[in-house]
């Protein structure tokens, strides 16, 4: 910058700051700091209050519905028991359970009775279920006999092997295919 211009700008430099301006500006800054702090606090609190959590709401609704369902069922059962008295013991179930207990033991008989008694409410199944169960028990009994017979046969064969009988018959498949094993010298 040339000396003339330099001198000119120096001469025309703006006057200093008014002394009261400092207080005014800093007071405005203070106010702004307080305003923004309180605004941040209130907006954070509002966000916390107003946030909707769909997962939590769904879980709460599910728990509420389960509790209500349980409450209604219990209350209906209680009222029916009060009006109609205790539930009758099903005769067929008691007879079948007694048979099972006679064949096995009392615990199995009780278990069978509980199972049969719990199924009595289902329509159409009431008549068929004891019959099906009886058939199943007969079948089981027959299989048990068969298994006992086979076990006896196996024991006999093992005894024969232990005796070392060389004239024993080879197994059926080997005999048919002529693959009998002969010991060499």
């Amino acid at each position, binding site marked *: 910058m040339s000396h003339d211009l330099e001198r000119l700008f120096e001469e*025309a*430099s703006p006057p200093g700051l008014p002394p009261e301006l400092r207080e005014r*500006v800093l007071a405005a*800054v203070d106010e702004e*700091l307080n305003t923004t702090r309180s605004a941040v606090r209130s907006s954070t609190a509002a966000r916390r209050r107003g946030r909707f959590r769909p997962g939590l709401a769904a879980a709460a609704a599910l728990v509420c519905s389960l509790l209500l369902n349980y409450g209604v069922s219990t209350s209906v059962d209680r009222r029916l028991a009060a009006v109609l008295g205790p539930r009758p013991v099903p005769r067929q179930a008691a007879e079948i359970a007694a048979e099972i207990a006679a064949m096995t033991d009392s615990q199995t008989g009780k278990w069978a009775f509980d199972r049969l008694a719990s199924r009595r409410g289902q329509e159409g199944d009431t008549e068929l279920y004891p019959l099906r169960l009886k058939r199943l028990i007969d079948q089981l009994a027959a299989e048990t006999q068969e298994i006992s017979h086979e076990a006896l046969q196996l024991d006999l064969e093992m005894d024969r092997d232990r005796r070392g009988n060389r004239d024993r018959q080879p197994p059926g498949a080997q005999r048919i295919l002529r693959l009998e094993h002969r010991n060499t010298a």
Partner: protein
Amino acid sequence: MESHGERLARGDRAAFAELYDACAERVHHYLVGRLGSRADADDLLQETFVRLARDRKRLANVRNLLPYVFATARNEAHRLIERRVREGRRRTELESALAIAEDGREKNKREAAERVSVLLERLEPPLREIVDLKIFGALTFREISEVTGLPQGTVATRYRSALEKMRGQSVKEWE
């Protein structure tokens, strides 16, 4: 140790007072030169500091605070100038803002203010802005480059160009 910017970002009042003491006078000079009105410069200086306090979180990452404060003041000044244009207000005379004498040399001051005002009025706006920042704001070319976002070379070229024009004008007037 906590930097000045971090203290400002935290909302420390003492840090804002320190910032004011460090740069308010230069920013005020710049605003007077830019707006041509001391009252507007006072208001805009206050507005600049309020804006800095409002957006104080950004100050934590500012390396050089002076150009940042000048950039904020510049944005505020642009807003005011645009508002003036929208409202059709007549531009305030720079001469009267600069002519306030403090040491009794009123006559010299008034003459200098008048000549400076005339010289600056004749500059194109991009050159005028660089002169305002360089002469009234007393910023370096690097700082002006940070404030305006222009390359440092462009700033220097514009400043030299503005000086040439003002020198030519003043020689013509004095002849």
